[in-house]
């Protein structure tokens, strides 16, 4: 048989899809939220089965949880600000907003670490302990990944690789940061809002 490409049309140059990063971010976000969602579902499951919840002597500081949530809420605004500014061609403002988002992200991780030091129980003490530590560690790891993504977006914007005509990297970094926010909201709801049964 003759090689079928003999009759082929010349290949059109489609170039790289511009929405690749957005799709990748969406898929990564789905996976991350599934991990957190599974842990929250496990938490709620054990909460429903336990005789006493949380265990005796366990109480999470609502002040810290609320501060973490407010910090995360601020980053939703600053991340969107970075995208908005870049789209309008205001690179300086976009860089500032990205820096602010990353800084608040670091503050969030720092506060999360502090929250971990304030827990008066260990992961091995009871089911609650294992679940609480798992939730906090996983959301912390996702947040650190989000900060890394923001740093990449920041440096590339500084190098003019993210511009008003192609803001996809900053857009994707902002979307990923919203996934971090959603993950924290799930954890906050489980650990703080649904702390007592």
């Amino acid at each position, binding site marked *: 048989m003759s090689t079928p490409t003999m009759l082929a*049309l010349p290949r059109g140059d489609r170039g790289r899809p511009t929405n690749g990063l957005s799709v990748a971010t969406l898929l990564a976000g789905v996976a991350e939220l599934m991990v957190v969602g599974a842990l929250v579902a496990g938490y709620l499951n*054990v909460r429903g089965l336990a005789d006493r919840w949380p265990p005796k002597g366990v109480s999470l500081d609502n002040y810290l949880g609320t501060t973490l949530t407010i910090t995360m809420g601020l980053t939703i605004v600053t991340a969107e600000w970075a995208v908005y500014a870049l789209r309008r061609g205001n690179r300086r403002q976009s860089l500032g907003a990205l820096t602010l988002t990353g800084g608040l992200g670091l503050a969030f991780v720092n506060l999360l670490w502090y929250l971990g030091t304030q827990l008066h129980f260990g992961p091995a003490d*009871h089911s609650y302990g294992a679940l609480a530590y798992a939730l906090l560690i996983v959301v912390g790891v996702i947040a650190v990944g989000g900060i890394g993504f923001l740093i990449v977006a920041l440096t590339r914007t500084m190098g003019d690789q993210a511009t008003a005509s192609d803001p996809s990297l900053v857009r994707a970094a902002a979307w990923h940061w919203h996934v971090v926010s959603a993950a924290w909201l799930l954890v906050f709801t489980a650990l703080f809002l649904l702390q007592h049964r």
Partner: protein
Amino acid sequence: MTGTWLTTADHKRIGRMYIVVALAFLVVGGVAGALLRAQSDLSQLSYLRLSDLRASGTATLVLAPLWVGLATYLVPLQIGASRLAFPRLQSFAFWSYALGGVVHLLSETGAGPRVVGVSLRQFMLNGAGDKGHTDLWVASLIVVTIAAIAAAANLVATVLLYRTDGMTLGRLPMFSWATLVSSTGTLLAAPVFLAGLVLLFIDQHFGGHEFFAAGTVGTQVIWQHMLWLYGRPDVYLLVVPGLGAASDIVAHAADRPLANLNAARTAIAAVGFLAFGAWAAGTKVASSIVLPTYSGLTAAVVIPLAVLVLVWLDTLRRAGRPRPDVSASFVVAFILALAAAGLAAGVAAIKPVDGSAWSAGQLDLVAIAAPLLLAVGALHYWGAKLFGRPIGAAAGSAQLLLLFGGSAVMALGSYLAGWDGQAGEVAASDGFSRIAEGGAVLVLLGILATAASVMARAARVTASDAAEAGLTLEWATTSPPPAHNFDAIPEVRSSTPLGDLRAVEASA
């Protein structure tokens, strides 16, 4: 040269590496399976360890990566792309899988982990195992699972973003369609398993002994939920790419598109969807999570499978005289294995056999033998594309006889032993178990023959201009393809662009 293989971003090389490493792990799993059957004087601990190595090892380290390897190689070619969406991510996924798999095997050596089998039904059996091995066991599974998620995301992104002009989702070749379905399922299910592994690691590494131990709040219920939310769909998702490959093989054998393409696509998507309905299986540890929908939704999977088989048969009927092809024989063997499993399920309804050797035989046949037959069939079908020359019809026939015949004999022995009342998780030496042992040896020989012939081809890939009379785009280029895959791509106006091209040639 070594550096090239280590750092390559070529999807074809990564795909071949996936296939070779998966086959190497298959040999380990096959040896474990044969030892399991042949050693009637094994201690309970050794028996369970080998059982874990065979079952979870085959699913996690062999079948899923084997399909990922084939998809990594073939999906860009089938959709007319020159690359994967994120080539370096696939490289990362491969090396994570390979290293994680080796560490997982190492964790089973020496004192071994405190866990025996991913179901954790024999958690910390008699205080066996140590902390270091347990950490390695869990951490290696975490790494392998992250690799599976990364590879699945990459394949989904590739199909969504890199299709050539005219290649709509409705015109995707069946293997690419099935890859999209199974990768989406993996993307949703594997993170749940990952969450369970994180919990297990935290519990074990930080000294927790009570979280999964019986009698404490939560106990193994969470683990059962998380394991089965991944494990049950995974059993189906391991077959889904095979269904796509089999559809392409049938179309190739018939030299025409599938008789009812939409029905076939819907059936494959339905298997992927229904896979998630089958998670609430009864477990010995957490019977509280048995859902009444389980039996119905599990049985419902039969409907799309039957539709797909009917489409295949109708396609072959319309073709008149299908072209003889060893890969099509593997598809026939798969159908026979499914029919046998269905018959066994019907017989099991007469007499309760849950937890007996009968269930073990059923698991071997449905979860391991059936997808393995499709995977080896796919390797034969695309052998020339992968390695430049086909694996060979004679070798394929021998492998088919050994794998299918061995699986059938092994399952028969297990069915008879289970019917006789033998428990599923003990080493036994009765007559029926001997039959199963004989089957296991045949399967092992089949695995060794397959691995040897594929690795021999992979070791010396030769370029060939010979074009196969395939219908889909991967056959529109040389075997193996050049680095950029295509010099020119035929216009895509249907799911079988090369068939269209030949029709134009014939009419001209």
